[in-house]
């Protein structure tokens, strides 16, 4: 079937993938109506698939799609309920038609990302919303990655889009005074999409690994759009470090390989170099932050593996810094493991025991298995590993824990 496809159909689909976010951002930035822009864009792509094979591919495919989508939005809102919005749109369309030259194709994706991560949007839906609008992922795919029911995720996304439209959330890059605070929201969404905890704790469950590639794309895009934000570079470095190791995290039979047993030759050199370059550039701004610290931890891990030197005390210190910057449960759990590896397993045990609300938090149990083992409590370690196994959704992690992977 595929060989019989018209090349124009392929081009329409490639354009869809490559330019979805840019086209959507441009359409929605004028009206703030993301849902209407999505519908219009979907229609435009459908029209492209139908027309391009017949009439030929336009010289400027993106421009063609935008024009068709805008016309669709204009028609849609003529029957709209809100006089203001329709009038506004008709005026915009008029201006568009009268402009002698095509407008410069402004990239509004950053503005779109700031709208999706506005503090007035429910925090839990910010990352999914960004993934859907910037990358065009469908709600079911996002729902699966965030372990949420597809219909529930769909509803949350619809509600968030409605809020952006009706509450008048601006499609704008915030003023410098607000920018650093607002950038945190964007970074948190990319971080959530990446689901980073996966490399921090031995045998911790990698829940969101399915959105890895998307998160890498978003992190690179952010670094391109905000080249002078050290934390953006820090997050990029962090994500690339983890991404570089992806191939080495599974053995030939699909088994889980922890960081300390990975073969550095199987790491991606280009990604590693890109990560290190981003981290070095971040450091030149002299403005530390949690993502830079996390990237530094991953960088140190990589150096440790490549040189054979042990940096355990330095890692424990970095985790102290991280815990002061971002005292999340995941960070404090990972810090305990770092302390245990640095020769302080008793202190690490006390740190883990001091935490509350960890009953069904898989990384806590996986960490306890490792820390108890290092503290000379093999039975407690085995029990913790069993609980961690029971809480894991990943078969490779389960067999790693059950086979005593926490001991080496």
């Amino acid at each position: 079937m595929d060989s019989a496809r018209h090349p124009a159909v392929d081009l329409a689909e490639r354009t869809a993938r490559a330019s979805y976010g840019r086209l959507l951002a441009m359409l929605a930035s004028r009206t703030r109506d993301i849902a209407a822009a999505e519908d219009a864009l979907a229609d435009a792509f459908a029209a492209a698939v139908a027309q391009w094979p017949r009439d030929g591919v336009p010289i400027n495919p993106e421009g063609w799609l935008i024009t068709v989508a805008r016309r669709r939005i204009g028609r849609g809102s003529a029957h709209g309920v809100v006089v203001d919005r329709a009038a506004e749109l008709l005026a915009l369309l008029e201006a568009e038609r009268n402009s002698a030259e095509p407008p410069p194709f402004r990239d509004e994706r950053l503005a779109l990302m700031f709208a999706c991560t506005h503090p007035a949007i429910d925090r839990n839906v910010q990352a999914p919303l960004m993934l859907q609008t910037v990358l065009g992922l469908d709600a079911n795919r996002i729902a699966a990655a965030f372990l949420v029911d597809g219909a529930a995720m769909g509803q949350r996304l619809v509600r968030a889009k409605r809020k952006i439209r009706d509450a008048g959330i601006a499609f704008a890059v915030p003023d410098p005074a607000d920018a650093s605070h607002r950038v945190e929201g964007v970074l948190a969404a990319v971080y959530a999409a990446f689901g980073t905890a996966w490399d921090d704790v031995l045998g911790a469950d990698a829940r969101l690994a399915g959105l890895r590639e998307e998160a890498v794309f978003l992190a690179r895009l952010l670094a391109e759009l905000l080249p002078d934000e050290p934390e953006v570079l820090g997050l990029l470095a962090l994500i690339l470090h983890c991404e570089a190791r992806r191939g080495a995290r599974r053995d030939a039979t699909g088994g889980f390989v922890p960081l300390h047993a990975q073969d550095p030759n199987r790491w991606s050199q280009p990604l590693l170099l890109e990560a290190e370059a981003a981290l070095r550039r971040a450091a030149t701004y002299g403005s530390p932050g949690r993502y830079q610290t996390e990237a530094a931890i991953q960088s140190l891990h990589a150096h440790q593996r490549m040189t054979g030197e042990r940096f355990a005390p330095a890692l424990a210190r970095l985790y102290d810094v991280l815990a002061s910057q971002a005292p999340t449960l995941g960070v404090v759990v990972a810090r305990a493991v770092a302390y245990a590896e640095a020769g302080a397993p008793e202190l690490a045990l006390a740190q883990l025991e001091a935490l509350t609300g960890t009953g069904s938090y898989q990384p806590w149990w996986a960490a306890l298995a490792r820390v108890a083992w290092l503290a000379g409590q093999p039975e407690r370690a085995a029990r913790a590993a069993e609980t961690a196994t029971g809480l894991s959704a990943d078969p490779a992690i389960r067999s790693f824990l059950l086979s005593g992977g926490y001991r080496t």
Partner: protein
Amino acid sequence: MQYVLLFNEAKAERDKREDPAAAGPYWGGWTAYMGAIAQSGVMVGGNALQPPETGTVLRVENGVRQVADGPFADTKEALGGYVVIEVPDLDAALEWAAKAPCAGAGSVEIRPVLPPPAA
């Protein structure tokens, strides 16, 4: 866009109205705030409200009017007043909300005004 800023005051803040030592700065703060909104040209309208104890609640149940003293006492925060402003977007509305004297002693709810339906 038009937004209504609903000013919710904690009880301690509300009680300042009746406290001779605190009433001066309390009203001074609100007068200055409302004045600043008016002067900037974004004010559409607004009012301070008498305290919740002065409120009366009406419901019609099975065609019968039920009138009661209210609203219910002991709610920690209560509506103390509101303004309607005309600003470009939510961020501009949030800027004004953050300056409200009750923002640090209660909360401000920001609600977009529903535009009139098409004829």
